[in-house]
């Protein structure tokens, strides 16, 4: 009797699974049937959080369900990503944040047990304008000038706002054979203070310099392609630093195994959000341009960026912490 029941249950389950698979194939799903959660790996009130909360309102309209924002700060989004990995594949929870939490952090920290393979990506919406910047009145305007300055002076001071910023500069310093003093800073604002008060020669920036026109100048783009805010500024790769790049789009991700139909629906909602006037207003205000990537392109970027960072770590002989 027990066996019969088990068999029956299995049959029901299979039929149900088949039905779900069929509906997935048509890229049509009733998801979301209840409010869903946007997981943000930073504290409330920051840049990513602000954007996420605006996005959550637009997504709620597009998806026809409430989108609740939950902040799980800690460890450069690691706390959020670790718990999120196993939060279920029914589309109840999705992650919104800078992709470096996935592409970079697990590669430099052996305690993190997640990789870029643990998630699927529904798209990207904006990107941090990662770049090398310097105080306005410095005698150099580009990387070549900076390197020349460093060689004449015997060394330069670099405000390094994250482990990733240090890795990028170590790779450049190795190629050029220059001495760099790394001054750690806490976040972009700590960096701005050192640059504005002329205490460092140059710095790594997530794009915050756009708020200080005439005070901070942009030397080079750290991304693999040129940046929206600085179309005339060459990338490090263009300048001859092959393979030295860090891409930081903000992606929307689900745990691996999430139904393709859910991904497709979120992809469409993100595309609508990328053209929404409210999103445009926020992006203009915080000067972080909308750079929409569909699911396929976002996944490809995650893969290529992860590989590029891995190569860079080998090049500078990095020891995993």
């Amino acid at each position, binding site marked *: 009797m027990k066996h019969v029941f088990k068999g029956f249950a299995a049959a029901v389950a299979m039929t149900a699974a088949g039905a779900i698979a069929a509906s997935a194939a048509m890229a049509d799903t009733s998801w979301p049937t209840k409010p869903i959660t946007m997981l943000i790996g930073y*504290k*409330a*009130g*920051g*840049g990513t*959080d*602000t954007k996420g*909360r*605006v996005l959550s*309102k637009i997504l709620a309209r597009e998806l026809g369900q409430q989108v609740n924002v939950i902040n*799980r*700060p*800690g*460890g*450069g989004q*690691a*706390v959020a990503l*670790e718990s999120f990995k196993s939060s279920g594949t029914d589309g109840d929870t999705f992650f919104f944040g800078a992709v470096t939490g996935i592409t970079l*952090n697990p590669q*430099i*920290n052996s*305690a*993190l047990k997640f990789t870029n393979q643990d998630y699927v990506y529904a798209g990207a919406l904006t990107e941090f304008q990662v770049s090398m910047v310097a105080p306005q009145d410095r005698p150099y305007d580009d990387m070549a000038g900076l390197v020349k300055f460093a060689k004449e002076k015997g*060394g330069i*001071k670099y405000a*390094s706002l*994250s*482990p990733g910023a*240090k890795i990028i500069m170590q790779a450049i310093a190795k190629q050029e054979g220059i001495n760099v*003093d*790394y*001054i*750690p*800073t*806490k976040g972009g*604002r*700590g960096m*701005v*203070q*050192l640059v*504005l*008060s002329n*205490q*460092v020669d140059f710095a790594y920036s997530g794009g915050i310099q756009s*708020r*200080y*026109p005439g*005070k901070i100048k942009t030397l080079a783009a750290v991304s693999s392609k040129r940046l929206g805010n600085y179309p005339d500024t060459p990338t490090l790769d263009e300048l001859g630093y092959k393979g030295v790049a860090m891409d930081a789009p903000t992606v929307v991700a689900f745990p691996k195994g999430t139904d393709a139909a859910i991904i497709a629906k979120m992809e469409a909602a993100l595309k609508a959000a990328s053209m929404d006037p409210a999103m445009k*207003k*926020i992006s*203009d*205000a*915080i000067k972080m341009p909308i750079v929409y990537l569909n699911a396929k392109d976002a996944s490809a970027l995650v893969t290529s960026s992860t590989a590029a960072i891995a190569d860079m770590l080998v090049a500078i002989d990095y020891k995993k*912490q």
Partner: protein
Amino acid sequence: MLDELYSVAGSAFAVGNIAWILFGVTLGYLVGALPGLGKGTATAVAIPLTFYLEPLSAIAFLVGISKGSTAGSAVSAILLNTPGEPSSTPTAMAGYPLARAGKAQKALKMGLFASVLGDLFSTVVLILVAQELAEYALGIGPVELTAILAFSMVFIAGLSGRSMIKGLIAGLFGILISCMGLEIETGSPRLTFGLIELYDGLPLIPVAIGMLALSEMMIQIGQRQRLADEADLLKGSSKREDQIVTLADWKNCIRPIVRGSLIGTVVGILPGLGASVGSFLSYGAERRASGRGADFEESGAIEGVAAAESADNAVVPASLVPLFAIGIPGSVIAAILIGAFTIQGITPGPLLFLENKDLILGVYVSMLAASVMLLFIGYFGQNMFARIVRISPALIMPIVVFLCCIGAYLQGGGTFGIGVMIVFGIIGFFSKKYDFSFVTFLIGFVIGPSFELSLRQSLGLVTDLPELLDHPVAIVFAVLAVVGVWRLTVLQRKQMAEMAKAETN
């Protein structure tokens, strides 16, 4: 300046705007009065509410919340010994014993008056000198901060209680604990025991709640009989002079309030120091000036409440000076306000006074209005909150422990925060039993990370010793710190000699 303020007063006093300020101050005061919830939480959570407001109303609302919650956090500090945020810790230390002695109303009122005065003073400073002061604030870099923090730590070491060695042990333990988390430059984990939750270090609020409130509850539960005897006292003294702020209280408190307002304003203007440094410094200064020593925490001190609250509230407006003028926040509140400004399409920084002058002036007028509203809302709100102390300890203790858990849960990343709180509750229990100063522990814990960061930045920035001469401010504070250590040692020796003498007698 005055006529300019007058010209925008019309828009600032528009009915809608005033309503938002009032709502902000009330909401802030209520949230602040809950244990474990402070200005950071209150303001951050309110930001999405401002999406659809006019810029002036939005900023005025948020400023109202931050002012209200800063003053409100004194309520739970004094009544329940649970500071809503670390900067109210000294308020709890000096104010809770007063509540135990039946003088809760007096402490609450003085705390409120000191809050409003400190806040008002700092707001006026902001209005008058924001533009001029900002340039100087920028000159305070890591080297200067290192010296200022070193000086602050020496100064606060004077709070260490009877034994300086025990105070130092507690302070260094605080610094050790503050080293937990990812190392700032390379991101290598320190003392994290493989726990990802510890990557950003121990959460401050659960540690503070555990050390102060939970340990206190454990001690009190152990003394239930004595408490029952004291219960009558807790209900509030029937004497009228214990319930109101008398002329004599004002005489005692006016100096700490003036000093606290000044300290808080300076700390607010300097980026990177934070409200806790302000209130602890002001509290420490008053404790030394009074000459009462550890009696401050044993029998409570209205002057201590006044000193801590005036400085705590003065930090908030002053921290907007560097924000408005150069775009650098001087406090958590200011950092959160940046998010609110940018949502409204306004960039805090040098161009603010050129592009949005009317808005800034409107914010100034709103801030002054918020100070006045704070006085009224606080005054009437307190009557309601002060009833808490009339409840029997047997009922109130479980409720306090429950509220502690909520605060730790919200601020410490869920149940992990509660775990942290319990561990530090036990540590706090033993440190109180064996007279290890939990004050120096908390100070070490709060200042530790800023000190490490600015010290390491300085080591990179100053590569040659002669370069130090470019930092005269740093040299002054370094010298003051050395003098402070010397004076403390002399003082300690004297006390030891006196104690030895007393024993031989």
